[in-house]
């Protein structure tokens, strides 16, 4: 992740510029911080979904550029969101153009190597497995039962189980989203647990 993406850099953003940008997002400091974080979260997700290997860096670059634009032309744009979307698309285009095929190949290889590494990283796996155990325990009995049933089987049995769960939980989309939310919480819990080294 520490690699430079190598495309055009934004002008340097000073702490004052950043403060002005937050002020522009909202005069309420707390609200501004929330908006900033939400904007950044969406940008990171956008770059991940575009298959970029440096989503965080690209999101920060986008935010920096938006802040500079806002500083230079404060009256031109009424919405930081709309501006950031446009800037994000430009940043992505630059990324696509300037990250060469060779670099993309290297990234692909590196993804594949990472997959290999993850298979072999037994210690990390065991730690995560321990975390998963405690995170599962942290779910309510109902959630735990749902997620186990949702993932317990394969093939035809899986289809039948999910059909039944959909009937019991108000439809297929509802149960899919519920399962997604539980998985997302488990993912967050595991990440936090591994980072804190709190394997029970």
């Amino acid at each position, binding site marked *: *992740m520490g690699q430079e993406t190598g495309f055009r850099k934004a002008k340097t953003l000073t702490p004052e510029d950043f403060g002005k940008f937050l002020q522009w997002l909202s005069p309420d400091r707390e609200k501004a911080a929330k908006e900033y974080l*939400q904007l950044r979260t*969406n*940008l*990171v*997700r*956008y*770059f*991940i*979904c*575009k*298959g*970029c*290997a440096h*989503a965080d860096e690209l999101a920060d670059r986008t935010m920096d550029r938006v802040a500079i634009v806002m500083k230079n032309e404060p009256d031109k*744009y009424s*919405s930081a*969101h*709309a*501006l*950031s*979307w*446009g800037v*994000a*698309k430009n940043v992505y285009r630059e990324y696509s153009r300037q990250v060469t095929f060779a670099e993309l190949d290297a*990234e*692909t290889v590196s*993804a*594949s190597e*990472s*997959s*290999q590494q*993850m*298979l072999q990283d037994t210690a990390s*796996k065991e730690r*995560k497995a321990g975390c*998963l*155990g405690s995170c*599962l325990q942290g779910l309510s009995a109902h959630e735990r039962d749902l*997620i*186990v*049933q*949702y*993932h*317990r*089987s*394969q*093939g*035809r049995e899986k289809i039948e189980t999910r059909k039944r769960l959909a009937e019991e939980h108000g439809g297929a*989309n509802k149960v*899919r*989203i519920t399962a*997604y*939310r539980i*998985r*997302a919480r*488990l*993912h967050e819990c*595991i*990440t936090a647990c591994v980072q804190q080294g709190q394997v029970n």
Partner: protein
Amino acid sequence: MGPKNNSKEVGLPEEAVVRNYLLGRLEASSEPGSRQIVDYLDDCLLSGNFSEQIGVIEDEIVEDYLEGTLRPQDTQAFEAHFLRPPERQEKLRVARLLDRRLKMEGQTKEHGNLEESQIEEKSTLPSSHWRRHRRSYAELAAVLLLCAVFAGYLADLRSRFRSEMTESNRQVAESRQISTSRLETAGNLQQPVLLNHFQTQVILRRGVEPAAHADAPLPELPLGAATKSIQVEISLPRLPFETYDVRLQNKAGQSLWSGSEPRFLTDADRNSKSSAGAILFFEVPSHDLLEGEYTFVISHASNPLVTYSFYVKSSHD
């Protein structure tokens, strides 16, 4: 400059389209209208609209990959594009962990609420022991050893199970020597070898096509009601690739299980660099296996390399 913020009114495109988008295939497409769909889905992500719905589809792509049910071209896009961000690689790791654990939990419930510690013991006990006793497989051309581990896993049987497993593992290690010898001399890849009550060792026949054995009976694997999983070893004589995918399919070709990370034991593990190749070592849940014909398909980059067929004989009575 601003995007068309009309995603909420329009709704999310159908799932197959979103899948193609997430796999990076829509962007590369020259189909008319694909550019507009990409722009629209970009806007959805940037505005946070349909975030969960897109997340669900993203998770299901990962799930399909883990189960080996992605189409070959999707698998390629998954590995080359989808997995490029480290965040997605982490998602895959956690999904794999979760998938295994939850499938185990599901099995546990079916078999009477096991304690978690028992589950973990069960999953690690035979493999670690077997690895220590593994002998050279250089002579084995392509042999699959299918070991069904029977156990009731009841709490009061734990200690008995452990001691009997220790004994049976010793017998398995010895029997492998015998199997190797049999293969060398008779080339018999079909005869099942019964070891003891706890473990059944079946040597399967290698085939090019799953159905290329019409004139000979398939090796039989007896499965009882208490059997929760089968442990499989596949000895590969050569090691031309770094990774292999293993899939279990029924006679109709329907995929029942797949392993994207079968554990490898290469010669390097045994400090020997001969032509012995590698051994794929993995465990397959057996609750989906009804009586009938099944095939393991070993492939690399979606290209089938070799298949092994066997017949599950249900002995529930």
